[in-house]
């Protein structure tokens, strides 16, 4: 599989910073087309900074970023931004349009896409996130989850190859979070989308093919969700909320029950519990 994102020896420092310390130090990784990669790390570890470097919202001190075969530079930045859709944390602060349809059309307007095409794509995108009924609503009359789905519809309409989610579900209630995650899974199933999701949410990280752990501006670990989740309580240090099955295992262990050391999904945990009880 071809590498759609390739980051080599990326160093970044905020210009307004007073120290010489780097915010990102020698970050290198690549992501294959169609992959879903989760980035985890505690607050202030540099995840958002990394994301903003990928589409040129921030310019690195050194290092090279290649997106879909194009090296990121001043000349290619607008092309690359077209290939990357980014959804941010706060649903309110990224809603540009005065109505749902206007917001979905915003990226298309920026690309100068003809109106006929826009009308069609906006309707399709809204149908895909199940928000067609809200087309003329103002953002003030939408829930957080609905706003994030509108943001996703904006991405669907603009047809990026890569979707970066910077804690896109963190301000939502569990229900809104589930809705948004379901929409992302659907989007991924419909097209060959590459997803990079920055998250503290274990369910979101568990949806990924691979997890990257960032600590203090450096990539410290990578692995499949199952491999990473085996760390148990150390996960909290990595900025993840412990998954429910792991919390349950820790609690059982304190009660003197011998628990498996491998990661179990909720379903796997339930099966194991059944076995444990029936063996007694």
């Amino acid at each position: 599989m071809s590498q759609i994102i390739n980051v080599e020896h990326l160093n970044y420092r905020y210009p307004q910073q007073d120290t010489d310390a780097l915010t990102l130090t020698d970050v290198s990784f690549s992501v294959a087309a169609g992959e879903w990669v989760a980035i985890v790390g505690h607050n202030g570890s540099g995840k958002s900074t990394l994301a903003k470097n990928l589409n040129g919202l921030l310019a690195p001190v050194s290092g090279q970023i290649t997106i879909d075969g194009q090296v990121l530079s001043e000349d290619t930045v607008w092309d690359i931004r077209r290939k990357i859709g980014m959804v941010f944390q706060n649903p309110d602060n990224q809603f540009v349009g005065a109505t749902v349809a206007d917001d979905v059309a915003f990226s298309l307007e920026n690309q100068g896409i003809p109106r006929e095409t826009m009308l069609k794509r906006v309707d399709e995108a809204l149908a895909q996130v199940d928000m067609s009924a809200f087309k003329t609503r103002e953002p003030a009359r939408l829930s957080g989850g609905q706003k994030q789905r509108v943001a996703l519809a904006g991405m669907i309409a603009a047809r990026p190859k890569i979707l970066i989610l910077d804690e896109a579900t963190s301000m939502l209630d569990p229900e809104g979070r589930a809705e948004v995650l379901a929409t992302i899974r659907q989007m991924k199933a419909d097209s060959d989308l590459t997803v990079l999701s920055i998250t503290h949410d274990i369910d979101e990280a568990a949806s990924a093919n691979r997890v990257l752990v960032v600590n203090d501006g450096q990539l410290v670990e990578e692995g499949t969700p199952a491999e990473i989740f085996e760390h148990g309580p150390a996960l909290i240090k990595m900025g993840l909320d412990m998954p429910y099955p792991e919390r349950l295992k820790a609690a059982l262990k304190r009660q003197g029950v011998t628990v498996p050391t491998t990661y179990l999904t909720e379903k796997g945990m339930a099966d194991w519990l059944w076995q444990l009880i029936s063996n007694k």
Partner: protein
Amino acid sequence: MMNKLIFGRYIPGDSVIHRMDPRAKLLLSFYFIGIIFIANNWATYVLLFAFTLLAIKLSGVKWSFFINGVKPLIWLILFTVILQVLFSASGGTVYFKWGIITISQLGLVNGVYIFCRFVLIIFMSTLLTLTTPPLELSDAIEYILMPLKVVHFPVYEVALMLSIALRFVPTLMDETEKIMNAQRARGVDFGEGNIFQQMRAIVPLLIPLFVSSFNRAEDLATAMEARGYQGGEGRSKYRILKWQARDTWATLAFAVLTVALVGLRLYV
């Protein structure tokens, strides 16, 4: 309260007036304010009132909204009218005279006319804001400002700014409400004490509001840039305005009104 001022104003509907092109509505409303000054006798005012009331009737909006539009301005209107009555050039029968204050028949008549002008202007602009969503108004303003592009006035940017400002009004209202509650929980009294105490109470409200607005603005700018916004040039438009037959008819109606006003002014 602000919310009611700006947003509670638009009354959704499906009347001819609602469906008119916002550019036509905006321009004709301004034109109407201009031709009010042609009126100088009772016949012309009667005609203007008949025209305005017909437009209101067509819009299907309840009368009470228009009366409510006049209410907050009533003291200003009465003040102006009284000045006009007391100090305008005297003419006709003089009823009362004391120093520079004169109440004459002409002064009284002028006062009534001024009152009529105020009411007409308020009725017409209320009709505009009640039947046009703010977003359409901002679109109309964009079109109307378009000629300024020749002098490099950033028309697209101003229009986008306007629509973003409108979009954020309810968000900031909610935020204000939240901050007010947070400050109340800390013992701040809003709307109590004398004017200075009330103003003092506003400070702990404004500062957090400013800080959060700047944060929002920064986030929004980042999001816009990430979505490929590079300024107004080269953008296509999702929302467009359509001039239709009814807009041409409305314009004709105003032309006829103008001719009739001039006629009545000259021959009555």
